[in-house]
């Protein structure tokens, strides 16, 4: 049983997008996967799962939890639990990170996005989360060059970063609106890029 969490220092960093895409990818690959939504206010994952079901897509198990420790109580029933963190980092971020086998910090490529995300990573490590448990994902990147520069920045701060990036594309937003994951757009290239991200995470947790 594995626990992956998606956390970030600010909203809009593609945490929920990453969590949903991973859940769809691992479910498709036969992993009994559970999406744990700990954001009672927004319930982004719960609503997406409902949209997915209404669209007749393969269902993904999803639960809403007030507390992180309650969310991980169901771990024995699943191969994988994916926890989507709250919009901004706060005390639960440490609880989530401590319970996780892998912590994914997704961030946009701009300095405004990178700096708080890297500071969060630094804080997690200073508070005892092993550096090797943390991996960064560059999302919403407008170009490959911007993505590469963001990846180099993350590496310069001493963190692992996924080779895969998630581009800023309207088709991704439309897919999520329709209850789909990032690799379920009508466009092969976009789907392949999103799948590459899922596969990289798969390789990390199976290493």
């Amino acid at each position, binding site marked *: 049983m594995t626990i992956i969490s998606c956390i970030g220092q600010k909203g809009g960093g593609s945490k929920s997008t990453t969590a949903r895409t991973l859940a769809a990818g691992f479910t498709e690959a036969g992993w009994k996967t559970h999406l744990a939504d700990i954001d009672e206010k927004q319930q982004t994952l719960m609503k997406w799962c409902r949209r997915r079901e209404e669209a007749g897509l393969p269902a993904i198990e999803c639960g809403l939890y007030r507390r992180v420790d309650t969310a991980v109580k169901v771990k024995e029933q699943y191969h994988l639990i994916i926890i989507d963190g709250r919009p901004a980092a706060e005390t639960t*971020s440490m609880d989530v990170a401590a319970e996780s086998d892998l912590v994914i910090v997704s961030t946009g490529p701009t300095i405004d996005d990178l700096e708080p995300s890297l500071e969060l990573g630094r804080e997690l490590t200073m508070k005892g989360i092993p550096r090797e448990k943390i991996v960064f994902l560059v999302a919403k990147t407008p170009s490959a060059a911007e993505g590469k520069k963001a990846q180099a920045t993350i590496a310069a*701060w001493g963190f692992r970063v996924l080779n895969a990036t998630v581009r800023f594309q309207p088709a991704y937003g439309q897919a999520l609106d329709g209850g789909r994951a990032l690799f379920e757009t009508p466009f092969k290239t976009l789907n392949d890029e999103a799948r590459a991200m899922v596969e990289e995470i798969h390789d990390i947790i199976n290493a």
Partner: protein
Amino acid sequence: MKQPKNTIKLSPPPVSEPTLDVTGKGARPDSDIKPIQIKVSVARHKEMKAYAAEQGISMTDMLLEGYRMLRETRGG
């Protein structure tokens, strides 16, 4: 000749620089010291304090010793 291109957007801060503590005060390393409070009668308090003083140990040491002994007896 052109200047070399800057390949990163942001340099890492010195290791000694404190973090913003965005994960809050509840997120503390295990080695931090945290107070614990118990409520007892005034008489019991006096008795415990006096006993600790007689033994030449602090109340903290006395209570921790009691905890250690209980763990040894009961296990767990």
